[in-house]
Protein backbone atom coordinates (compact mmCIF):
# COMPACT_ATOMS: atom_id res chain seq x y z
CA UNK A 1 0.00 0.00 0.00
CA UNK A 2 1.35 3.41 -0.94
CA UNK A 3 2.31 5.73 1.90
CA UNK A 4 -0.29 8.38 2.58
CA UNK A 5 0.92 11.27 4.73
CA UNK A 6 -1.35 12.28 7.59
CA UNK A 7 0.28 15.74 8.06
CA UNK A 8 -0.86 16.27 11.63
CA UNK A 9 -3.17 15.22 14.45
CA UNK A 10 -6.36 16.92 15.64
CA UNK A 11 -10.09 16.89 15.20
CA UNK A 12 -10.87 20.64 15.22
CA UNK A 13 -11.11 23.08 12.33
CA UNK A 14 -7.63 24.38 13.18
CA UNK A 15 -6.09 20.93 12.77
CA UNK A 16 -8.08 20.32 9.61
CA UNK A 17 -6.83 23.62 8.13
CA UNK A 18 -3.24 22.72 8.98
CA UNK A 19 -3.62 19.41 7.14
CA UNK A 20 -5.27 21.08 4.16
CA UNK A 21 -2.62 23.77 3.76
CA UNK A 22 0.24 21.29 4.07
CA UNK A 23 -1.28 18.89 1.57
CA UNK A 24 0.07 19.75 -1.90
CA UNK A 25 -2.94 17.95 -3.38
CA UNK A 26 -5.29 20.57 -1.90
CA UNK A 27 -5.72 23.60 -4.14
CA UNK A 28 -5.47 26.76 -2.08
CA UNK A 29 -8.40 29.09 -2.55
CA UNK A 30 -7.47 32.37 -4.27
CA UNK A 31 -9.07 35.24 -2.41
CA UNK A 32 -7.32 38.35 -3.71
CA UNK A 33 -5.43 39.56 -6.73
CA UNK A 34 -2.13 41.25 -5.96
CA UNK A 35 -0.19 41.64 -9.20
CA UNK A 36 3.36 40.44 -9.92
CA UNK A 37 4.54 44.05 -10.03
CA UNK A 38 3.00 44.77 -6.61
CA UNK A 39 4.69 41.75 -5.06
CA UNK A 40 8.04 42.85 -6.49
CA UNK A 41 7.49 46.36 -5.09
CA UNK A 42 6.66 45.16 -1.58
CA UNK A 43 9.59 42.76 -1.47
CA UNK A 44 11.91 45.53 -2.66
CA UNK A 45 14.69 43.34 -4.04
CA UNK A 46 14.62 44.75 -7.58
CA UNK A 47 12.79 47.42 -9.56
CA UNK A 48 9.69 46.01 -11.31
CA UNK A 49 10.47 45.20 -14.93
CA UNK A 50 14.23 45.21 -14.46
CA UNK A 51 16.32 42.16 -15.38
CA UNK A 52 17.04 39.59 -12.70
CA UNK A 53 20.56 40.15 -11.35
CA UNK A 54 22.52 36.91 -11.36
CA UNK A 55 24.80 35.18 -8.88
CA UNK A 56 26.38 32.90 -11.47
CA UNK A 57 26.11 32.23 -15.25
CA UNK A 58 23.12 30.19 -16.44
CA UNK A 59 23.65 26.47 -15.83
CA UNK A 60 23.56 25.73 -19.56
CA UNK A 61 26.52 28.04 -20.11
CA UNK A 62 28.73 27.24 -17.16
CA UNK A 63 29.37 23.57 -17.94
CA UNK A 64 28.06 21.30 -15.22
CA UNK A 65 30.32 18.52 -13.91
CA UNK A 66 29.28 14.96 -14.59
CA UNK A 67 27.22 14.29 -11.47
CA UNK A 68 24.47 11.66 -11.04
CA UNK A 69 22.54 13.84 -8.60
CA UNK A 70 22.43 16.73 -11.05
CA UNK A 71 21.04 14.36 -13.62
CA UNK A 72 18.33 13.25 -11.20
CA UNK A 73 17.23 16.67 -9.93
CA UNK A 74 15.88 19.13 -12.45
CA UNK A 75 16.88 22.71 -11.53
CA UNK A 76 14.14 25.28 -10.87
CA UNK A 77 13.75 28.16 -13.32
CA UNK A 78 15.65 30.51 -11.03
CA UNK A 79 18.53 28.08 -10.51
CA UNK A 80 18.70 27.42 -14.24
CA UNK A 81 19.08 31.15 -14.92
CA UNK A 82 21.58 31.71 -12.09
CA UNK A 83 19.36 34.12 -10.08
CA UNK A 84 20.37 35.54 -6.72
CA UNK A 85 18.84 34.05 -3.59
CA UNK A 86 16.32 36.46 -2.08
CA UNK A 87 13.71 36.26 0.67
CA UNK A 88 10.21 37.13 1.81
CA UNK A 89 9.32 37.16 5.48
CA UNK A 90 5.91 37.09 7.13
CA UNK A 91 4.73 37.93 10.62
CA UNK A 92 1.43 36.29 11.63
CA UNK A 93 -0.79 37.57 14.41
CA UNK A 94 -1.85 35.03 17.00
CA UNK A 95 -5.38 36.46 16.80
CA UNK A 96 -6.64 33.94 14.26
CA UNK A 97 -4.23 34.67 11.43
CA UNK A 98 -4.64 32.09 8.65
CA UNK A 99 -1.02 30.92 8.84
CA UNK A 100 1.58 30.63 11.54
CA UNK A 101 5.35 30.28 11.31
CA UNK A 102 5.74 26.53 11.79
CA UNK A 103 2.95 25.75 9.39
CA UNK A 104 4.43 28.05 6.76
CA UNK A 105 7.70 26.15 6.80
CA UNK A 106 5.93 22.81 6.56
CA UNK A 107 3.65 23.85 3.74
CA UNK A 108 6.45 25.50 1.78
CA UNK A 109 8.57 22.39 2.07
CA UNK A 110 5.63 20.29 0.85
CA UNK A 111 4.44 22.61 -1.89
CA UNK A 112 7.47 24.43 -3.31
CA UNK A 113 10.80 23.35 -4.78
CA UNK A 114 14.21 24.82 -4.05
CA UNK A 115 13.18 26.75 -0.92
CA UNK A 116 14.92 27.31 2.38
CA UNK A 117 12.26 28.13 4.98
CA UNK A 118 13.28 29.40 8.39
CA UNK A 119 10.92 29.42 11.36
CA UNK A 120 11.14 31.83 14.26
CA UNK A 121 8.70 32.44 17.11
CA UNK A 122 6.58 35.13 15.51
CA UNK A 123 7.83 35.28 11.96
CA UNK A 124 8.89 33.04 9.14
CA UNK A 125 11.30 33.65 6.32
CA UNK A 126 11.62 31.75 3.07
CA UNK A 127 14.63 32.07 0.81
CA UNK A 128 15.02 30.87 -2.75
CA UNK A 129 16.05 31.98 -6.24
CA UNK A 130 14.52 35.34 -7.09
CA UNK A 131 12.16 34.39 -9.92
CA UNK A 132 10.97 31.31 -8.06
CA UNK A 133 10.45 33.47 -4.98
CA UNK A 134 8.19 35.87 -6.85
CA UNK A 135 6.05 32.99 -8.02
CA UNK A 136 5.82 31.47 -4.55
CA UNK A 137 5.29 34.84 -2.84
CA UNK A 138 2.34 35.51 -5.11
CA UNK A 139 0.77 32.25 -4.04
CA UNK A 140 1.45 32.97 -0.38
CA UNK A 141 -0.17 36.42 -0.61
CA UNK A 142 -3.09 35.80 -2.97
CA UNK A 143 -4.49 32.67 -1.38
CA UNK A 144 -6.24 31.87 1.87
CA UNK A 145 -2.86 31.70 3.62
CA UNK A 146 -2.84 35.50 3.91
CA UNK A 147 -4.95 38.17 5.55
CA UNK A 148 -4.03 41.82 4.97
CA UNK A 149 -4.73 42.86 8.57
CA UNK A 150 -3.33 39.91 10.51
CA UNK A 151 -0.38 38.92 8.34
CA UNK A 152 2.45 41.33 7.59
CA UNK A 153 5.17 41.17 4.95
CA UNK A 154 8.07 42.29 7.10
CA UNK A 155 11.74 41.93 6.29
CA UNK A 156 13.02 43.66 9.42
CA UNK A 157 11.40 44.97 12.62
CA UNK A 158 8.77 42.26 12.67
CA UNK A 159 7.33 42.56 16.20
CA UNK A 160 3.56 42.17 16.33
CA UNK A 161 2.69 38.46 16.40
CA UNK A 162 1.82 38.30 20.09
CA UNK A 163 0.53 41.83 20.60
CA UNK A 164 -3.00 43.06 20.96
CA UNK A 165 -4.47 44.37 17.73
CA UNK A 166 -4.90 47.99 16.86
CA UNK A 167 -8.33 49.58 17.27
CA UNK A 168 -8.99 49.11 13.57
CA UNK A 169 -8.05 45.42 13.74
CA UNK A 170 -4.56 45.71 12.22
CA UNK A 171 -1.60 43.90 13.74
CA UNK A 172 0.92 46.22 15.41
CA UNK A 173 3.76 47.27 13.13
CA UNK A 174 6.49 49.54 14.44
CA UNK A 175 7.17 50.70 10.88
CA UNK A 176 3.51 50.82 9.77
CA UNK A 177 4.27 49.30 6.39
CA UNK A 178 0.58 48.95 5.63
CA UNK A 179 -2.38 51.07 6.61
CA UNK A 180 -6.09 50.46 6.54
CA UNK A 181 -7.80 53.00 4.30
CA UNK A 182 -10.95 53.93 6.17
CA UNK A 183 -12.72 55.13 3.00
CA UNK A 184 -12.63 51.93 0.98
CA UNK A 185 -11.66 49.48 3.74
CA UNK A 186 -8.63 48.27 1.77
CA UNK A 187 -5.22 47.64 3.32
CA UNK A 188 -2.49 49.47 1.43
CA UNK A 189 1.24 48.92 1.67
CA UNK A 190 3.03 52.27 1.80
CA UNK A 191 6.49 50.87 2.57
CA UNK A 192 8.36 47.84 1.32
CA UNK A 193 9.17 44.96 3.61
CA UNK A 194 12.24 46.61 5.12
CA UNK A 195 10.50 49.94 5.75
CA UNK A 196 11.49 52.08 2.76
CA UNK A 197 8.71 54.29 1.40
CA UNK A 198 7.14 53.04 -1.83
CA UNK A 199 6.62 55.31 -4.83
CA UNK A 200 3.00 54.26 -4.97
CA UNK A 201 0.59 52.45 -2.67
CA UNK A 202 0.17 48.72 -3.13
CA UNK A 203 -3.33 47.43 -2.46
CA UNK A 204 -3.41 44.17 -0.50
CA UNK A 205 -7.19 43.80 -0.40
CA UNK A 206 -9.78 44.02 2.35
CA UNK A 207 -9.23 42.36 5.71
CA UNK A 208 -11.24 39.16 6.06
CA UNK A 209 -14.12 39.10 8.51
CA UNK A 210 -14.09 37.39 11.90
CA UNK A 211 -16.14 34.41 10.77
CA UNK A 212 -13.85 33.68 7.81
CA UNK A 213 -10.76 34.01 9.99
CA UNK A 214 -12.12 31.63 12.58
CA UNK A 215 -12.88 29.10 9.86
CA UNK A 216 -9.48 29.44 8.17
CA UNK A 217 -7.06 29.93 11.04
CA UNK A 218 -4.31 27.48 11.91
CA UNK A 219 -3.60 28.92 15.36
CA UNK A 220 -5.22 27.67 18.53
CA UNK A 221 -6.40 30.52 20.73
CA UNK A 222 -8.58 29.94 23.78
CA UNK A 223 -10.04 33.46 23.85
CA UNK A 224 -10.75 34.44 20.24
CA UNK A 225 -10.75 31.09 18.47
CA UNK A 226 -10.51 27.37 19.01
CA UNK A 227 -8.81 26.33 22.24
CA UNK A 228 -6.02 23.76 22.02
CA UNK A 229 -7.49 21.91 24.98
CA UNK A 230 -10.74 21.42 23.07
CA UNK A 231 -8.85 19.30 20.56
CA UNK A 232 -8.71 15.95 22.36
CA UNK A 233 -6.86 14.18 19.55
CA UNK A 234 -4.12 16.81 19.32
CA UNK A 235 -3.71 16.88 23.11
CA UNK A 236 -3.45 13.08 23.23
CA UNK A 237 -0.80 13.11 20.49
CA UNK A 238 1.27 15.86 22.16
CA UNK A 239 1.06 14.07 25.51
CA UNK A 240 2.22 10.84 23.89
CA UNK A 241 5.19 12.56 22.23
CA UNK A 242 6.01 14.30 25.50
CA UNK A 243 5.87 11.05 27.47
CA UNK A 244 8.00 9.18 24.95
CA UNK A 245 10.62 11.90 24.81
CA UNK A 246 10.80 12.15 28.58
CA UNK A 247 11.12 8.39 29.02
CA UNK A 248 13.73 8.21 26.30
CA UNK A 249 15.74 10.75 28.25
CA UNK A 250 16.10 8.12 30.98
CA UNK A 251 17.06 5.42 28.45
CA UNK A 252 14.46 2.88 29.59
CA UNK A 253 15.34 -0.77 29.22
CA UNK A 254 12.33 -2.81 28.24
Amino acid at each position, binding site marked *: MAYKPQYGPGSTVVAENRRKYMNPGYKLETVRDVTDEDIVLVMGHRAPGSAYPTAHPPLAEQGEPDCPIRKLVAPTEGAKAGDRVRYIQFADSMYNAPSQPYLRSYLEAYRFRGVDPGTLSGRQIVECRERDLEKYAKELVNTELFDPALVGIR*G*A*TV*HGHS*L*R*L*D*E*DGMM*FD*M*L*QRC*VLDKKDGVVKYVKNQ*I*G*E*ALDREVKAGKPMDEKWLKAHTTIYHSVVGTAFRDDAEAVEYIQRIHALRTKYGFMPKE
Partner: protein
Amino acid sequence: MTDAIYPQVRVAPVRLLNPETVEQLLNRLAANPGIRRILLKGQSIPVTVPYGPARGAPNPHSRRQTINVLGEEVQLNTHVGTIDMELESADVLPSIRAACEEVFTKFSFSILEGRFMKTQPTVSDYAKYGPNADEILLGLVDPKSRKGPVILQGYR
Protein backbone atom coordinates in the same frame (compact mmCIF):
# COMPACT_ATOMS: atom_id res chain seq x y z
CA MET B 1 10.64 55.93 47.45
CA THR B 2 7.02 55.82 46.42
CA ASP B 3 4.94 55.64 49.53
CA ALA B 4 3.20 52.31 49.76
CA ILE B 5 -0.01 53.88 50.95
CA TYR B 6 -0.89 55.16 47.47
CA PRO B 7 -2.90 52.56 45.58
CA GLN B 8 -2.05 51.89 41.94
CA VAL B 9 -4.27 50.71 39.10
CA ARG B 10 -3.70 49.57 35.55
CA VAL B 11 -6.19 50.12 32.75
CA ALA B 12 -5.74 47.38 30.16
CA PRO B 13 -7.95 47.64 27.06
CA VAL B 14 -8.12 44.66 24.70
CA ARG B 15 -6.87 46.78 21.80
CA LEU B 16 -3.87 49.06 21.39
CA LEU B 17 -5.15 52.62 21.49
CA ASN B 18 -5.22 55.29 18.81
CA PRO B 19 -3.80 58.68 19.85
CA GLU B 20 -7.29 60.20 19.64
CA THR B 21 -8.62 57.64 22.10
CA VAL B 22 -5.69 58.23 24.46
CA GLU B 23 -6.36 61.95 24.28
CA GLN B 24 -10.04 61.51 25.11
CA LEU B 25 -9.29 59.21 28.02
CA LEU B 26 -6.46 61.28 29.46
CA ASN B 27 -8.52 64.45 29.36
CA ARG B 28 -11.12 62.69 31.47
CA LEU B 29 -8.60 61.08 33.82
CA ALA B 30 -6.16 63.95 34.27
CA ALA B 31 -8.91 66.31 35.37
CA ASN B 32 -9.48 64.04 38.32
CA PRO B 33 -7.58 65.46 41.33
CA GLY B 34 -7.43 62.03 42.95
CA ILE B 35 -4.85 60.77 40.42
CA ARG B 36 -1.24 61.55 41.33
CA ARG B 37 0.67 60.09 38.40
CA ILE B 38 -0.20 58.58 35.04
CA LEU B 39 2.17 56.37 33.08
CA LEU B 40 1.48 55.46 29.45
CA LYS B 41 2.97 52.17 28.32
CA GLY B 42 3.13 50.53 24.94
CA GLN B 43 5.26 49.43 22.07
CA SER B 44 7.88 51.94 21.06
CA ILE B 45 7.47 53.73 17.74
CA PRO B 46 10.89 55.08 16.73
CA VAL B 47 11.41 58.24 14.68
CA THR B 48 13.72 56.38 12.30
CA VAL B 49 13.93 52.76 11.20
CA PRO B 50 16.00 51.14 13.98
CA TYR B 51 17.46 48.17 12.15
CA GLY B 52 17.65 46.35 8.85
CA PRO B 53 18.92 47.62 5.51
CA ALA B 54 16.78 50.76 5.82
CA ARG B 55 18.25 51.71 9.19
CA GLY B 56 18.14 55.45 9.73
CA ALA B 57 15.38 56.10 7.19
CA PRO B 58 12.48 58.25 8.47
CA ASN B 59 9.60 56.28 9.95
CA PRO B 60 6.32 58.14 9.48
CA HIS B 61 3.71 56.46 11.70
CA SER B 62 0.16 57.61 12.34
CA ARG B 63 0.25 56.42 15.96
CA ARG B 64 3.19 58.63 16.85
CA GLN B 65 1.46 61.93 17.44
CA THR B 66 1.30 64.88 19.76
CA ILE B 67 -1.88 64.95 21.79
CA ASN B 68 -3.30 67.70 23.94
CA VAL B 69 -4.07 66.91 27.57
CA LEU B 70 -5.67 69.74 29.53
CA GLY B 71 -3.79 72.29 27.44
CA GLU B 72 -0.39 70.58 27.67
CA GLU B 73 1.21 69.01 24.60
CA VAL B 74 2.13 65.37 25.12
CA GLN B 75 4.31 63.63 22.53
CA LEU B 76 3.35 59.96 22.25
CA ASN B 77 6.43 57.84 21.54
CA THR B 78 4.59 54.56 21.92
CA HIS B 79 1.52 52.83 20.64
CA VAL B 80 -0.28 53.01 23.98
CA GLY B 81 -1.45 49.66 25.32
CA THR B 82 -1.78 50.09 29.09
CA ILE B 83 -2.26 53.06 31.37
CA ASP B 84 -0.88 52.83 34.91
CA MET B 85 -2.00 55.28 37.55
CA GLU B 86 -1.14 56.12 41.10
CA LEU B 87 -4.08 57.35 43.14
CA GLU B 88 -4.49 59.45 46.26
CA SER B 89 -6.97 56.86 47.51
CA ALA B 90 -9.07 54.02 46.18
CA ASP B 91 -12.10 56.32 46.24
CA VAL B 92 -11.36 57.55 42.72
CA LEU B 93 -11.68 54.07 41.22
CA PRO B 94 -15.36 54.46 40.26
CA SER B 95 -14.64 57.68 38.37
CA ILE B 96 -11.76 55.95 36.50
CA ARG B 97 -14.06 53.10 35.56
CA ALA B 98 -16.71 55.60 34.42
CA ALA B 99 -14.18 57.44 32.23
CA CYS B 100 -13.05 54.16 30.65
CA GLU B 101 -16.61 53.06 29.99
CA GLU B 102 -17.29 56.37 28.32
CA VAL B 103 -14.26 56.13 26.01
CA PHE B 104 -13.91 52.39 25.32
CA THR B 105 -17.20 51.84 23.57
CA LYS B 106 -16.09 49.48 20.79
CA PHE B 107 -14.02 47.06 22.86
CA SER B 108 -13.70 45.89 26.43
CA PHE B 109 -11.09 46.69 29.05
CA SER B 110 -10.05 45.63 32.51
CA ILE B 111 -8.89 47.58 35.52
CA LEU B 112 -6.30 45.86 37.68
CA GLU B 113 -5.22 46.88 41.16
CA GLY B 114 -1.69 46.22 42.34
CA ARG B 115 1.84 47.63 42.20
CA PHE B 116 2.80 48.69 38.71
CA MET B 117 5.31 51.52 39.15
CA LYS B 118 8.95 51.54 40.15
CA THR B 119 9.45 51.66 43.92
CA GLN B 120 13.24 51.99 44.13
CA PRO B 121 15.73 53.90 41.97
CA THR B 122 17.82 51.74 39.66
CA VAL B 123 21.46 52.37 38.86
CA SER B 124 20.34 54.28 35.75
CA ASP B 125 18.04 56.43 37.89
CA TYR B 126 20.90 57.09 40.31
CA ALA B 127 23.19 58.10 37.46
CA LYS B 128 20.59 60.45 36.04
CA TYR B 129 18.95 61.97 39.14
CA GLY B 130 21.61 61.47 41.84
CA PRO B 131 21.13 60.34 45.43
CA ASN B 132 18.34 62.79 46.27
CA ALA B 133 16.01 62.04 43.39
CA ASP B 134 12.45 63.28 43.56
CA GLU B 135 10.61 60.04 44.17
CA ILE B 136 7.59 61.16 42.19
CA LEU B 137 9.69 61.20 39.01
CA LEU B 138 10.97 57.65 39.37
CA GLY B 139 9.65 55.27 36.78
CA LEU B 140 7.72 57.95 34.90
CA VAL B 141 10.21 58.28 32.05
CA ASP B 142 13.07 56.19 30.77
CA PRO B 143 16.10 57.59 32.65
CA LYS B 144 18.11 57.35 29.45
CA SER B 145 15.63 59.56 27.64
CA ARG B 146 16.40 63.24 27.38
CA LYS B 147 12.76 64.10 27.83
CA GLY B 148 11.11 64.47 31.20
CA PRO B 149 7.56 63.76 32.24
CA VAL B 150 4.74 66.11 31.30
CA ILE B 151 3.57 68.04 34.34
CA LEU B 152 -0.01 69.20 34.29
CA GLN B 153 -0.07 72.29 36.42
CA GLY B 154 -2.92 74.07 38.05
CA TYR B 155 -5.21 71.11 38.54
CA ARG B 156 -4.31 70.24 42.14
